[in-house]
């Protein structure tokens, strides 16, 4: 039986972080959720192996279509047991984009690189490598999957942009509230856009917290995004997107 790890959604041009952040810059509900549902990154599990995939992931359920993905995108992989201690995972041959090992929490950080919008379209290059740059950013995407729970997992596990449930998400059922903390560098992040199944539902407050409601059983996909100024000759901004993925028992009708 297959299950999936899901990374933040990305467009064909790898601009998921920007899209998601733009959705909630001023108003969560004012942005059309469909804008964030172009292309996705996710991790697909088969037994004890999880593989990074790219393509379409409609609604957090089945029917995914995959597209080719470059192996150089992965920046780091972190695995933890339920006590928050590092767990061992093995990277399989790079081209496969796969990892083997058991972990309560698995965090994969990726980047689609530098992006610059020009008068001739958006290019996957830094702004100092193109003519007539209009806007530029570096895109970072990450995903955390939870397959077991321990109190230690109610705290951030990395210094990246990260979504952390404040209580056991695996015990939730449709209709329950999922209470989340969004951090970067281990500190709460205010104003991060948070979406459920690709639909923006809120933004974090000063304490980095936001609540979502579980809508269905099966795969749960929560995403957060943030855009920050970037003091770099290569880009104006850094666009961060992260996802939290876990699975609940399927309910009737899901």
């Amino acid at each position, binding site marked *: 039986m297959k299950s999936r790890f899901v990374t933040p959604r990305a467009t064909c041009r790898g601009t998921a972080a920007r899209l998601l952040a733009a959705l909630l810059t*001023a*108003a*969560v*509900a*004012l*942005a*059309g959720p469909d804008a964030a549902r172009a292309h996705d990154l996710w991790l697909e599990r088969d037994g004890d192996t999880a593989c990074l995939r790219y393509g379409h992931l409609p609604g957090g359920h089945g029917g995914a279509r995959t597209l080719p993905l470059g192996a150089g995108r992965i920046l780091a992989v972190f695995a933890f047991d339920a006590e928050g201690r590092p767990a061992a995972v093995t990277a399989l041959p790079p081209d496969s984009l796969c990892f083997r090992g058991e972990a309560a929490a698995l965090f994969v950080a990726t980047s689609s690189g530098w992006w610059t919008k020009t008068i001739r379209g958006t290019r996957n290059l830094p702004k100092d490598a193109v003519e007539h740059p209009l806007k530029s950013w570096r895109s970072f995407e990450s995903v955390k999957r939870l397959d077991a729970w321990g109190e230690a997992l109610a705290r951030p596990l990395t210094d990246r942009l990260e979504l952390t449930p404040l209580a056991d998400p695996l015990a939730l059922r449709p209709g329950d*509230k999922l209470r989340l903390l969004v951090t970067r560098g281990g500190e709460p992040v205010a104003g991060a856009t*948070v979406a*459920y199944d690709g639909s923006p*539902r*809120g*933004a*974090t*407050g*000063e*304490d980095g*917290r*936001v*609540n*979502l*409601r579980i809508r269905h059983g099966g795969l749960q996909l929560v995403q957060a995004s943030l855009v920050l100024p970037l003091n770099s000759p290569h880009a104006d901004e850094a666009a961060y997107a992260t996802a939290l993925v876990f699975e609940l028992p399927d309910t009737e009708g899901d």
Partner: protein
Amino acid sequence: MRATALLALAILLAPVAGLAHHGVASLGVAGLEGPGAPVETSSSATLPQGSLLAFLKLDHAVFETYTDAVDGEGASNAFWMYGLGWGIRPWLSAYAVLPYYAKKVEDNSFNSAGFADMSLMGVIGLKWDAGLHLVPANESLDDLEDWHFTLYGGLTLPTGDADLEDANGAIDPGMSLGFGTPSTLAGVTATKQLTGRVTAVADASWIGFGENTYADGQKVRFGTELRANLALTARLLTLPERRFRLDANLEGNYLQLGRDEADGVGEDATGGAILYVLPGLRAYYRGVSLGLGVKLPAWTDLNEADDQQGAEGKEDYRLVVSFSTLM
């Protein structure tokens, strides 16, 4: 004698309802997916901390007349409410309203117009989320689906002219621009977003009046008002790219009026109960909200009904328009 000025406090709350969605997820602007807000019934909204709400509301009542002659029957009343609201805390809002009344009788023998009693009000916001809490600073769209409540209270200050005289030097308290004495208001609201598109809102309030001694020596105490409103709003249309939303509203507005007293004696042809039905629309565009509704008396049980005219329950209709913007 029922002074239409008494509507001031009740009307005061309604523009607040138009901004119910402004608490959505700290958006600061109208949410296209948050709970809806009726036109008349007060929703359980509080203003975001530090935000300023400006609003204007018109309640234009056109009364039935019962004689063929053009005489002194009440013809129409227009109540304009100019208001400001301030978000002191996420769970505490304060409002000030300055009403302007224009009351007209059929033969224009005693029309009155002018600024009336200023109203002040405070609103405390609560919600149920695994327990009763004060409304927090930040709520997601999913948080807004929780039960929300407000407790509110207010008073009027006697800034309007209560002793307005007609051409003969007589004072009709029902045509005056103020109560001459403070009145008090207390109420409670409950709001629940039932589905992504439909929101239910309930509101109950009480207004009590003190006895005022007018310049001509008469002492009048207006009867206590009780209101119970129930509303359903349904999101009809959203245009995210234009930040536009249109809701339909259907409200039932129950009003029970106590009998007025003059010199300690209950006055005939005052008081009773009315159930209004109010179909309406509310449109949102960016940070602006416009509500429009027609309030119709669907059922009445008025004291000495045949003798009442130009008062609540005797309208042809009431046109209700509200405009509000959050800054």
